[in-house]
């Protein structure tokens, strides 16, 4: 059994989702406790960045899913997490687009879910038992 880490660009993109979606969460927490609108602006842009990174990561995961046989359960779960994360993140972007406090509390709830999913996906992506393992 040969351990092959995931493609380095895939790795960079995947790792980037954590600080971005964590940033969304922290900025939303700051907005919800201070009502200072600039935190919401930060959250909105970090979310766009997160979606770009997560979207490209998802693309890599799908390519892996197609290329690598046999498809392991972990690879499938990893891809599904990225997909759900991206969809929820996109919905959160729409939620953030509603004016002022109209985005709350949905924005904060989604930010928590998406940040935790980004951490989970990254954990899986870099673990030794990941899809990149060739048997």
């Amino acid at each position: 059994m040969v351990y092959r880490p995931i493609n380095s660009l895939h790795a960079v993109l995947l790792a980037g989702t954590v600080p971005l979606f964590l940033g969304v969460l922290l900025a939303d927490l700051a907005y919800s406790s201070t009502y200072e609108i600039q935190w919401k602006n930060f959250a909105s842009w970090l979310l766009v960045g997160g979606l770009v990174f997560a979207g490209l990561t998802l693309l890599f995961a799908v390519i892996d899913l197609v290329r690598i046989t046999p498809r392991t359960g972990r690879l499938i779960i990893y891809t599904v997490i990225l997909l759900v994360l991206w969809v929820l993140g996109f919905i959160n972007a729409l939620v953030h687009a509603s004016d002022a406090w109209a985005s709350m509390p949905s924005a904060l709830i989604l930010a928590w879910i998406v940040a935790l999913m980004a951490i989970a996906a990254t954990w899986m992506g870099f673990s030794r038992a990941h899809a990149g393992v060739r048997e």
Partner: protein
Amino acid sequence: MKRLICAFVFCAFMAACGGRDPDAAQYGSAPPLPEPQKQLFPTMKIAEPAAWGGRKPVVPAGYSITAIATDLAIPRQTLILPNGDILVAEGRGGNAPKLTPKDVIAARIKAKGTSPVKGGNRLTLLRDADGDGTYEVKSTFAEDLNAPYGLALIGSQLFVANQDALVRFEYQEGLTRPSSAPVKVTDLPSALNHHWTKALTASADGRFLYVGIGSNSNITERGMTAEVDRAMVWQIDAQTGAHKPYATGLRNPTALTIHPVTGQLWAVVNERDEIGPNLVPDYLTSVQEGGFYGWPYSYWGKNVDTRVKPEDPQKVASALQPDYALGSHVAALGVAFSQPSMGARFAEGVFVGEHGSWNRGDPSGYKVVFVTFQNGRPVGEPIDFVTGFQADGKTFGRPVGVTVDPRGALIVADDLSNTIWRVTPVEAVASPDAATAAPPQ
């Protein structure tokens, strides 16, 4: 889970594109107000501009309409001078930066529904010297202004409300071009200028000017500090330029006028968006000195808007209810009291120019309506006066400012087709007495 999410996203799209928003008949002093809605996508129906071609706006039987000036550069408000000349303020203002991804996207979408022409930043003079209804002179009266909008004449002083300052020209009858540059009366709040238009009217005695200053956001999404000196009407001493807030909480007071008999200040105000097709009605109201009209904390009196944090229950408790609802999202941008020379049916009341909606599946506005007055108060439902700006899914024009020419004409500025329209009774009404005696239509 995936299916659930797909269904969710699909519903959101359907809600955004979905068609029919029934007319809630939100007119008068007690409009029905539905519960606010949360929408993932704000409902949008952007006007699709098209040339008038052979068409013309539609006016009631007994009236005719002609285009007296075309190819203008975004005409907004007009002023009838004592000799019958018409001044047209042309321009496009606003310099609010795009702060969020939404700002970037929404600006692109909304721009599709407006004219691509560059704002003129000038005043154009139209003259019909022989009184035949053809305005044979169209010349530049003043240029290098900064998005001029409100216009008012007090004696020999012509006041122009630029988007950043109130300025004054010396004027005498027949003047076609002032010899000197304008003099600044006072600066006006201009930071960001999300709602940039500065509506203007003069008090009946000529001592004061009133300037309408719109909010810097839909509903405080640019932060509370951006709203200092916004969403209010200023009273300005015409000679000294000293100002004070005259009334506050008026989200976007886009046109002001004085009742010809009572001398009372009236305004049309554009209310907030993105809480549903039938919220919040734009309105026509008398403006009470010292009055607070709700924005941003509440709408139509004391209905709290939960999008605003921190809340201010004390302000909400003091909020006045406006006089007359015009309907949600109609975007009233012009108001003018009528005169008997307009004919008996439209002799007493106000004309209101409605630029038209974006935040509604079924468009509202896109017409000029007449609101009848009795004993100095608006009554009944608005009556369509100029329509036909939209047909077959296309939009040919969007009314802005309306002005009544005492000789018996309504002047309508159209900032989509860059046209000035003139509506006249087919048979001129000789005098107020004759107007009252005219048979009903």
